[in-house]
């Protein structure tokens, strides 16, 4: 099973693009992990100045090793969970609809979808120094019929994505209107 099995593609439907958060957020996760991984090195250096035998003592060495192992396994798991969260938070845009999958921690995810031909407005917002420098921002979609809005925070290249979604929505609208006209005339 993969993400495409979360929804059934219609016969005429194909995936146009996948939207994720900007990679800079993944890089921040890596930097954060690197800092956490480097912390014990400083702690060990400090301990060695206080008590030089702490890493070789028959009792203290196993204690330090077990604590170190727990620490590194914990931050490794924490880092992997952050990467998975980044990897699984995604908007799948097809030529017919938009499917938003949001991973919320380990045990929860939200999946919602919207027909592209109902999209009335797409807003991209790039706000702040970092967002302007790296080119990320928030995408918001509004539909014609409902009050519902779709938001994607920290999406990569939102102005380009906005244009592409609008173009796809326009093409899908034409397709649906064309089909309804053909249905009305009985073809």
């Amino acid at each position, binding site marked *: 099973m993969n993400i495409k099995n979360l929804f059934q593609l219609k016969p005429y439907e194909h995936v146009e693009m996948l939207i994720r958060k900007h990679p800079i957020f993944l890089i921040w996760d890596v930097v954060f992990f690197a800092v956490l991984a480097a912390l014990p090195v400083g702690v060990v250096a400090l301990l060695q100045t206080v008590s030089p035998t702490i890493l070789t003592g028959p009792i203290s060495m196993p204690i330090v090793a*077990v604590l170190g192992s727990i620490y590194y396994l914990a931050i490794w798991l924490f880092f992997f969970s952050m990467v998975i969260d980044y990897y699984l938070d995604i908007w799948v845009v097809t030529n017919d609809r938009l499917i938003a999958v949001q991973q919320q921690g380990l045990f929860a995810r939200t999946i919602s979808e919207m027909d592209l031909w109902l999209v009335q407005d797409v807003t991209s917002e790039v706000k702040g120094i970092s967002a302007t420098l790296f080119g990320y921002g928030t995408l918001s979609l509004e539909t014609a019929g409902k009050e519902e809005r779709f938001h994607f925070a920290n999406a990569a290249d939102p102005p380009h994505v906005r244009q592409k979604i609008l173009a796809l929505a326009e093409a899908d609208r034409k397709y649906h209107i064309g089909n309804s006209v053909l249905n009305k005339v009985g073809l």
Partner: protein
Amino acid sequence: MPIYLLLIPYALFLLIFLVFSLVDLINAWRFRTGFFSASFLILAYLAGTAVIIFVTYNLLSPVDWFQVIGAGIKFTPLTL
């Protein structure tokens, strides 16, 4: 108190680690968007975990786990 008692909380931690890792790995595989990206993530995680476990094993394997804390050992910074 024998120091092998230290291994009990460590084993409990490893159990919790295993459960959470499995959930993450299953999520990564079930909801993957690409075969290679998901495979790379999973293999990288397993490799990192293997390295940590291997280093821990190498450090802990020569330890005499039946040593008793407090038996003839003075807890000064130099002997601890």
